[in-house]
């Protein structure tokens, strides 16, 4: 994309069919270590993208750049028509529209499940408490653990905690959901319950970007798989194409490792 086109796009109001997320030549360094190298990618509305790659390939960093938990140093990131910048209002808007689920759940241990869910609707969306609680119970029912509402995170299993974390993000009614290795910290028997929740969410038409190694999940719901290695996007395509006919040696190597591992 040339410079003039970029400027033109910035000037025009965003058309409704515009991509939900645009990453345009994004670069990032930690100190002198180059962790994102010219990463460019578009995610359409309602598209489900799975990002995979070996550890240290920059996939988590990329996804964390999308809601500015990490700050990129070069290039452009546009989320839902708002460009990420130092501007705090833009940041507030994006954080409201983008939900995130972390590898280590990051539930607030001193609050009950219900309080975890209602905190942001009350303080960010300025919702009345009763309404927020009703909303929260709705989502708890959707992730199938309404009976845990008054417990504390420490009393729940890992899988339940991660489902609560998903419900917590959904309570903000985000347009986009980011998942950063949501099942990596879970025991095998709990992975399924979280994946089921995510599949259900995907089938409801949510825009999703998901960093995961769960190939079954990718095959079932992903529109596109993106393979990253050493800070750059190496290859991308439909799950079938990527898994059956990998083009690059790096993806072949990665797939063989994953298959051996499972």
């Amino acid at each position, binding site marked *: *994309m040339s410079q003039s086109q970029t400027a033109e796009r910035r000037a025009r109001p965003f058309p409704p069919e515009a*991509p939900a997320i645009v990453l345009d*030549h994004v*670069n990032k*360094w930690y*100190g*002198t*270590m*180059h962790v994102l*190298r*010219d*990463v*460019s*990618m*578009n995610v*359409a509305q*309602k*598209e489900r993208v799975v990002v995979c790659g070996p550890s240290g390939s920059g996939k988590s960093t990329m996804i964390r750049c999308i809601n500015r938990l990490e700050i990129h*140093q*070069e290039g452009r990131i546009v989320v839902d028509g708002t460009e990420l910048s130092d501007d705090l209002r833009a940041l507030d808007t994006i954080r409201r529209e983008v939900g995130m689920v972390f590898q280590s759940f990051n539930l607030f241990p001193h609050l009950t499940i219900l309080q975890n869910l209602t905190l942001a609707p009350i303080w960010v969306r300025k919702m009345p408490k009763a309404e927020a609680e009703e909303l929260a119970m709705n989502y708890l029912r959707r992730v199938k653990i309404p009976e845990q509402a008054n417990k504390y995170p420490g009393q729940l299993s890992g899988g339940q905690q991660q489902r609560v974390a998903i419900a917590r993000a959904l309570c903000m009614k985000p347009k986009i959901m980011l998942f950063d290795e949501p099942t990596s910290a879970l025991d095998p028997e709990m992975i399924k319950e979280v994946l089921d929740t995510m599949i259900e969410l995907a089938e409801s038409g949510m825009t999703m970007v998901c960093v995961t190694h769960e190939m079954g999940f990718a095959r079932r719901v992903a*529109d*596109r798989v993106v393979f990253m290695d*050493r800070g*750059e*996007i*190496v*290859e*991308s*395509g*439909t799950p079938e194409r990527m898994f059956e006919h990998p*083009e*690059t*040696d*790096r993806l072949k190597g990665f797939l063989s490792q994953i298959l051996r591992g499972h």
Partner: protein
Amino acid sequence: MSGTAQIDPVPATAGATPAPVIEERRHAAPAGGPWAWARLNLFGSWWSTAVTLGLGALIVLWGVRLVEWAFINAVWSVPYNASGQPQTAACQEARGVGACWAIITDKYRLILFGRYPYEEQWRPAICIALFIGLYVVSAMRRFWRRELVLIWLVTLAVIGLLMWGGVLGLAFVPQDSWGGLPITLILATFGLAFSFPLSILVALGRRSTKLPAVKLLCVLYVELIRGVPLISLLFMASVMFPLFMPEGVNIDKVLRAQIAIILFAAAYLAEVVRGGLQALPKGQYEAADALGLTYWQKTGKIVLPQALRLVIPPLVNTFIGFFKDTSLVLIIGIFDLLLSGKIALSEPAWQSFSTEIYIVLAVIYFAFCFAMSKYSRGLERELGRATRR
């Protein structure tokens, strides 16, 4: 599924270029170097910049004045008159603008060794060196073995021999004339040597489930001692202790203070040791029981070696605390480092130069404590790494 043939505007970075070898970067990281560092860490925002400039100005201003006071305008020595009295006119003149280090050059022997006979002061000097050597050896991990106990016993015996004398042609020096840094080191080191075993017994007693009466005794001891200030124990040692003893038995004042310090230290150390005992996984106790070890075998061979290793950093920190707390014996009139500093100040000619004396004393205490705390933190990091692995 709507779009697998996706809007992917930049396929160039994707599969098209299979590049197993990563080429060198086209553009380097945003400029590094001291200027970038300063912009990030000193001038990150206008607020940060203001703070940096304000503090910087103060540091420069006070730094210059401090250097002038401590070095440029300082008086390093003063003349003496015929009778050996120091003539401090030069110091009096420099007051406020320059330090009077002459008081240190005049009094350092008194501060370090107290009233120990002047010609014999090489003996406490050797003792100080022995103490420091003992600390250094104890700090080295390759000496963490049973033999260390032996090293301690021998060193402490040699120190006692040197201080008292009376044999091998050394003149006898009564305890009343000891003073200065050796007293501080003796109180701290002997205090540790005796309170540590006591604290282990108390900690074990407090953890015991089979001996409720002993447990109660240990809890009472620890909580009572920790609830009162050290001073009250020292007062007890100085005024009440003589009443406890049968008639005619008179225990030396330093020894009485030493006993108070041991009892005080043991209560605090016991809590640290108890923390280690609690941190040890239950499986270790069960494994030892399953092997058929007796209580003392289990404790001595399995539990304590691990539990004590866990709490070495807090033990060192507690020891730093006692080292500082030994200065409290000044209040009951024992000639430690701090009191000898104060005595040095009592001479009329030197009376108004307390700042200089206190700074030197602070430097001595700081050197010991800082070395220990630096060591404890290094150890903490090292042990933390080892257990995480």
